[in-house]
């Protein structure tokens, strides 16, 4: 506070006091008393409060930074063989695709994803989605793609037609190493071995979400020298990082086209049901199962539980897309 005898400039609060006050930090009693009775300083404090609020508002609007964390080993579910691979793929994909949909995140370092419907073969074609009135969900295997529509066969064996428009959010994930091509922008999440990263997850193209599944620090860059065994990741700073991929590497394409969805993929579609039973989709994601016989060295250990139903946080296009890809 500028109240000392040698200070002839001002009897008002020093900027440091005003900044501290705007930051909610303690100021000394003398400064506090001055603030109570000085209209000029109260106005200044109010202006700095507003500026600080603006800065924090922008910070709060910043995308969520990737949150790496390791799963709790005590809760690992270790499986073996093809079932292990299938479950791992499904669970990892589901973790990425549906965490928001079921209101669960990765902040607890362990993801229990609940998805699917009609496991007993008698489930409905469409199921309600909470959080957005009129929104329904179709889940099943992709039978065929006809132009802008999909035919999905549900677990009960019933076909459902899913129509899309140019604004439908389409994404896909699974054993899709062929999507990793030279020049592609990718985000790699994996484990280090010396200078090499063994990729557990590779996100191709512009990421929709900044959320990580537990355990990995993401590295972003451009693909170079892509092969079936891996590629070289060139970071924005020019660093070249060798990346290995395997049959267990999960590839995610957050912004895909219908033509990229593979026959047999598990399809999750959110949209509105028409009178003829078709689903006019606002968001579609396809999860491609890993092929049997791949190496058993899966990197992620995330358990999965099945449950009917899903949830979205609103009806905006982004909210619905976010329900299929969390953390936007």
């Amino acid at each position, binding site marked *: 506070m500028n109240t000392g005898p040698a200070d002839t400039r001002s009897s008002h609060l020093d900027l440091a006091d005003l900044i501290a006050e705007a*930051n909610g930090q303690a100021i000394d009693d003398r400064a506090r008393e001055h603030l109570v009775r000085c209209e000029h300083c109260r106005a200044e404090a109010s202006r700095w409060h507003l500026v600080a609020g603006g800065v924090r508002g922008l910070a709060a609007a910043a995308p969520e930074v990737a949150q790496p964390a390791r799963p709790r080993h005590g809760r690992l579910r270790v499986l073996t063989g093809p079932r292990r691979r299938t479950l791992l793929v499904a669970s990892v994909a589901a973790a990425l695709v549906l965490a928001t949909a079921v209101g669960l995140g990765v902040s607890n370092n362990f993801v229990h994803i609940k998805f699917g419907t009609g496991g007993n073969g008698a489930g409905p074609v469409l199921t309600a989605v909470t959080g957005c009135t009129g929104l329904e969900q179709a889940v099943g295997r992709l039978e065929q793609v006809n132009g802008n529509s999909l035919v999905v066969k549900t677990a009960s064996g019933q076909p459902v037609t899913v129509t899309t428009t140019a604004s439908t959010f389409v994404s896909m994930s699974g054993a899709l190493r062929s999507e990793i091509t030279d020049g592609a922008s990718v985000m790699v999440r994996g484990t280090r071995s010396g200078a090499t990263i063994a990729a557990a997850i590779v996100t191709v193209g512009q990421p929709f979400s900044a959320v990580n599944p537990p355990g990995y620090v993401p590295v972003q860059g451009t693909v170079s020298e892509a092969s079936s065994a891996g590629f070289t990741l060139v970071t924005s700073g020019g660093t070249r990082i060798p990346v290995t991929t395997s049959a267990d590497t999960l590839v995610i394409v957050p912004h895909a086209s219908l033509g990229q969805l593979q026959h047999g993929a598990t399809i999750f579609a959110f949209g509105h049901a028409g009178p003829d039973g078709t689903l006019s989709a606002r968001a579609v994601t396809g999860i491609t199962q890993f092929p049997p016989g791949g190496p058993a060295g899966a990197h992620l250990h995330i358990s999965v539980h099945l449950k009917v139903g899903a949830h979205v946080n609103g009806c905006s296009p982004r909210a619905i897309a976010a329900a299929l890809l969390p953390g936007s």
Partner: protein
Amino acid sequence: MNEPHREVGSPTFTASRDGACDDAALLRRIGQGDEDAMAAFYREHGQVVLAQVLLVTGERVLAEEIVQDTMLAVWRGAGSFRGESSARSWVIAIARRQTRDRLRRRRLRVVDDAFLADQPSSGPGPEATALDRADLAEVMGAIRQLAASHREVLGLAFGSGLSLPEVAGVLEIPVGTVKSRLTAARAALGRILNEKGQNR
């Protein structure tokens, strides 16, 4: 309508924080190649660094790349951390250098000397009046239009949890210059708001 006491933001952006000892221990472990420690450090500081870099660059993808490069630099350089500053100000200083390098390559300048001259406000002029009349959304929009150097100092002072001496350390300028720059930033903010008000 001015709402000076409205709280915006998350606990990530509180002005003060504990855990300096934990940070030092984390950095020691990172220096020894402990990936868990790196992940913990990332969780502790990544969001604040991203918010600060995004405030300066205004580009999400670029900001995320800079944060990534910053964390790679932390991974490689944690052993050189001597504890002379807080880990938060250390990592933000690294991010600032990364940002400056990246923007320099794009022929932009983070710190433009033209914006660094002391421009202390002189009482409730039109800029202060404009600020008094502005609401939070308008202020947020106006901050986006500030020069990078002004966004930077505001972000460090209000968004990163650093003290003014720590801000001075990050910017490598005296505390008095930090104050001058903050005052100039607010004056510029007021001018933007004033111009918007006149155009309405």
